[in-house]
Structures are given as structure tokens and as C-alpha cells.
């Protein structure tokens, strides 16, 4: 069965995000005074073949842990859909 894994990777809260800071300053200078914080990250959409949703979850987690995410600076969450 084909599943779609949507994976969000963000910098850990303890890690400064210079890109996010720069975007926040740009938003402020454009007059978006309500913007208080910006954190940037990465988004992956992976189509994968698996026997079940549980197996697709396991596969997605392994992909994150082995390659997609660097746990020193990043954390992730994901969803699996059919």
C-alpha cells in the first residue's frame, strides 16, 4: 500500500535560529507588530510503500533518525496518511 509521510523538522528550542530571527525582523519592519517569534524548519513529503500504517510509521521514524534529522540541533514530528 502507498502511504504519504509528512515530516516537519525544526531546530530544537535551545538552538538559536538566525534565519527565523531575520524573518521576524523583516516582518516587524513591514508593520506586522503582532509577530512575536519565528522558527524556521524543513518539510519533507515522502511517498512510501508499506504493508500497514504502523509499518509506514516505523519506516518514517527510521528515515528521520538515520538521515533526515540531526538530533544534535533538530527535532521532528510526522503524520502518515493513505
Amino acid at each position: 500500500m502507498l502511504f504519504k509521510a509528512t515530516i516537519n523538522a525544526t531546530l530544537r528550542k535551545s538552538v538559536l535560529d538566525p534565519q527565523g530571527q531575520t524573518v521576524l525582523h523583516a516582518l516587524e519592519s513591514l508593520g506586522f507588530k503582532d509577530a512575536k517569534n519565528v522558527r524556521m524548519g524543513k518539510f519533507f513529503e515522502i511517498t512510501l510503500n508499506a504493508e500497514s500504517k504502523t509499518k509506514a510509521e516505523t519506516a518514517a521514524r527510521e528515515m528521520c533518525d538515520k538521515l533526515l534529522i540531526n538530533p544534535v540541533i533538530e527535532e521532528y514530528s510526522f503524520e502518515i496518511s493513505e
Partner: protein
Amino acid sequence: MRAAVIVFPGSNCDTDCFNVLRDVMKTPVEFVWHKERALPKTDLVVLPGGFSYGDYLRTGAIARFSPAMEAVKKHAAEGRYVIGICNGFQILLEAALLPGAMLRNRSLSFICKPVWLRVEDTSSSFTSHCKKGEVLQIPIAHGEGNYYCDDAALKTLRDKSQIIFRYSSRDGRVTDEVNPNGSRDNIAGIVNEKRNVLGMMPHPERASEEILASVDGRRIWESLLGELK
């Protein structure tokens, strides 16, 4: 001493490293394509600078899975020497041969300029010909050299004298103003606990010949040659 320079798709300082080792330091050196599963007989492995795999995903993240990296890990585990320069440092971090990770420079700019480095430790084989506190001029050229590690890892690096180079002023003062990229604790280069693997963002191979602005990079090659004679 014999040396091997690993060439990844996107490496661009491989030839400079090769040239300095062969023509300046008079050391036998060869290139090793990243697809090789075994290394030639060598004392030193050089992971050169560049943009391996286009820096896609994260700097060094894909190069660490190259077949040659398994051989490099084995070489390091046997206590032999590895130096990773710039992208080579990033690959060593991704391969977990050194602790920590790289973030974008805090200015978000690619920075290419000569900087001053204070030698923090001379007990490593990479700096045995330097004096503690000596200041070297070596250029940097990177967009992601903002070294990060958590508090516990930083404490270990300090306690075990694994910080080898810090960004400093010309007279050796380590301050935030002379930190070019936002690295924690002004870190420019570290070794592993066994002290046989060095990662550094500055490029000693670009400061090893009189025709260039500085020959301070030679201190590192001379230290290694002295150890491995």
C-alpha cells in the same frame, strides 16, 4: 608520513590540500574517490573543504554515508589521524566522529576572509609544533560554520582540552566581536577524546605558501609530520 585526500562530489579544496602536502610538505599523498571502500596505506586522512552533495539536506549529511567514510571511521578507530577542514569538519560532525553540529552563520552571510586563531592546546599531534596561546592567521570560507553543542558537550570539550583553536583577535583575545560566525565559545577547531581526529573551519591549506598571505597553516602540517616521521 603518507596522506590520502578523500574526494567527494562537490569537494573543491581537495587539489589545494594535495598540492600543499606533496609540493610544500614533500609528503607522499594520493586522492581517494569517495566510492572506494578501502583506503591505501596511509597515516593521515584529509577530508577537504567544498560543498559535498551540494550541501543538500544539511552540510556533510549525505557525504557521511559515502563508502569511503566507513574506511575513514575504521582508520580513526585504529587511532590513526584524520583532519577535516571546513566541509570536512561538517562531515566529521554528521558522522559523529566529533561532537556537535553546524548552524548557519549568525550573520546568514557566506564569510570568506583571513581570521586569527588562538592555539588553545598543544598536546594534540596537530599542534605539537605550536606554542600554547600562539596566534595563527588562517582564512575561513563558509556559510555554515556556526559551531553548536549543548552545555554538557561544551563542558566535556573544555574539561578534556578538546578545543584546539578559538577565534581571537590578532593579540590573542577571545571576544564576541572577533567571533566571525557565532560559534559557541568561539570554537574554530576541536579534536575527539582520543585526540587523533581534528575538525577545523579555517583552511590551513590556503595559508601554507609564501605567495599567499600567510604560512601559518604549515604549523599544523609540520606538527603532523613531526609526529609521524
